[in-house]
């Protein structure tokens, strides 16, 4: 018994290592290209750190990166709260309604371009001033659907008797949620938030349409796609490397400070 489980464990470890290798292959390539002296992606012309220097002086790219981070964080926060509450609401309802199911699926299947044009037309019709805030509320639309799908997958096999027990012991709704429900669903909530953030920081078409007309609401994907016509310079590769390194550093630090936050 113990031997078989050791074998399974080893196989799982190898699988995970291969998956991570697959995920990081293009990252290694783009990191290498960030040190390529020439601007063309296909030919190595020598080692240089000039793209990092150029990046430091490129206010457009850096400003766009900050905007993207801001939109990602705020829309993730809102979508996580709304998506989790939606998942709890749906899964605790006695009768499942087809209309609500459809409403929750819809943001995932409506083509991006339809949502983008619809939101822009709608905001213009109501004369809503546009900016980063309109990108944020628009990203929340699809993000909350993804978060609620992840949390619902967890709640489908949730043992509601534990919350009843808490109530029986005199715990109010808030206490029960904070002390009993939330810790049990926290891994799903965190997974949903990671999913939402990842979708938001890479989203282009909805951001482009719902952004205001101004530099202060240009996001990184908008900036990078606009570079296609005259060449995407390796400054963008350098930025990707910096983003990844800073994220690793930040998360490692947070991990040190707050061990085991996820363990339910």
């Amino acid at each position, binding site marked *: 018994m113990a031997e078989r489980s050791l074998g399974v464990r080893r196989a*799982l470890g190898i699988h995970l290592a291969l998956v991570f290798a697959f995920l990081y292959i293009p990252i290694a*390539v783009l990191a290498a290209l960030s040190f390529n002296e020439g601007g063309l992606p296909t030919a190595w012309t020598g080692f240089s750190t000039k793209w990092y220097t150029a990046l430091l002086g490129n206010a457009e790219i850096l400003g766009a990166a900050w905007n993207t981070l801001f939109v990602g964080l705020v829309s993730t926060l809102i979508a996580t709260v709304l998506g989790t509450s939606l998942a709890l609401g749906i899964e605790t309802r006695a009768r499942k309604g087809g209309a609500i199911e459809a409403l929750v699926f819809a943001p995932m299947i409506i083509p991006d*371009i339809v949502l983008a044009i619809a939101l822009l037309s709608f905001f213009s019709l109501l004369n809503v001033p546009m900016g980063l805030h309109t990108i944020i509320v628009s990203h929340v639309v699809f993000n909350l659907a993804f978060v609620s799908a992840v949390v619902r*997958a967890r709640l489908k096999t949730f043992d509601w008797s534990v919350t009843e027990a808490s109530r029986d012991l005199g715990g109010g709704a808030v206490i029960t949620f904070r002390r009993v429900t939330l810790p049990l669903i926290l*891994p*799903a909530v965190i997974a949903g938030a990671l999913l939402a953030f990842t979708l938001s920081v890479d989203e282009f078409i909805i951001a482009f349409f719902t952004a205001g007309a101004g530099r202060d609401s240009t996001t990184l994907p908008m900036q990078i796609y606009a570079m296609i016509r005259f060449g995407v310079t390796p400054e963008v590769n350098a930025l990707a490397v910096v983003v990844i390194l800073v994220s690793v550093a930040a998360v490692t630090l947070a991990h040190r400070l707050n061990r*085991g936050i996820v363990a339910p």
Partner: protein
Amino acid sequence: MAPALAWLTALMVVPCALILALGFFRRGTYGGIEYSFTLENFALLFDPLYAGIFLTSARVAGIATAIAVVIGYGAAYAITAAPRNRQPMLLFLAVLPFWSNYLIRTYAWIVLLNREGLVTQGLRMFGYEGEPPSLLYTEGAVIAGLVYNYMPFVILACYAPLSRLNPELAEASRDLGAGAFTTFRRVILPVTLHGVAAGAVFVFVLSIGNFITPALLGGGKFQMIGNLVYAQFLTANDWPFGAALSMALIAIMMVLLTVQARATERGSGQARGAADG
């Protein structure tokens, strides 16, 4: 729940209904809307060209989903088998590559796989002199690109249901004499089926709506539904037909998702509540 429903109603249902309603009107000569009621956009949907594109993209998205689910589920399982305090870090590392930019990552794949790319140069360094392998601009390349970009979402969707799987449950099953495969099929899979289903839906809907991967890794030689809808709204400036196409797509996807949700419900019914510890 009410705030979320209000959000979706105000910022999705109402705006999208206004745009989708354009499906009942005509494209003006210069791309505006001519407000006379017509069903011709819906009649156009029955052109075999569009059904063909739908079937092709459903097939491509379906294959990508199957591969992503198998790989992603295994990876999520492996993460839950790691020490508990390392799990959040592993989960984070699985999505981190995707905080770089889609376009840049895709270019990196092209640099690697093109006929004069790093893979070919590597082969030549080891004395290979034949024709360089054709890895890009094929359906396989599109599928690989979709698996690459969306598989981490399967990991995220499967992680939570797997992480709360009581290890004692699996052990009990084995103690009762069940083999590893039986334990997986009868105990682990039913309890985590909803996570698998959610992950599969993510990959499928994101793939079928994608319009950049077919253009770059597929060399534009393949069309997904995403390309077709994008072309109507932006290239042809034909919002009425784009709206009709989107309505058809939404309706078909709703039916597929409902069928899938029912099947998942049945498949996991036996395991409901069995594993909370």
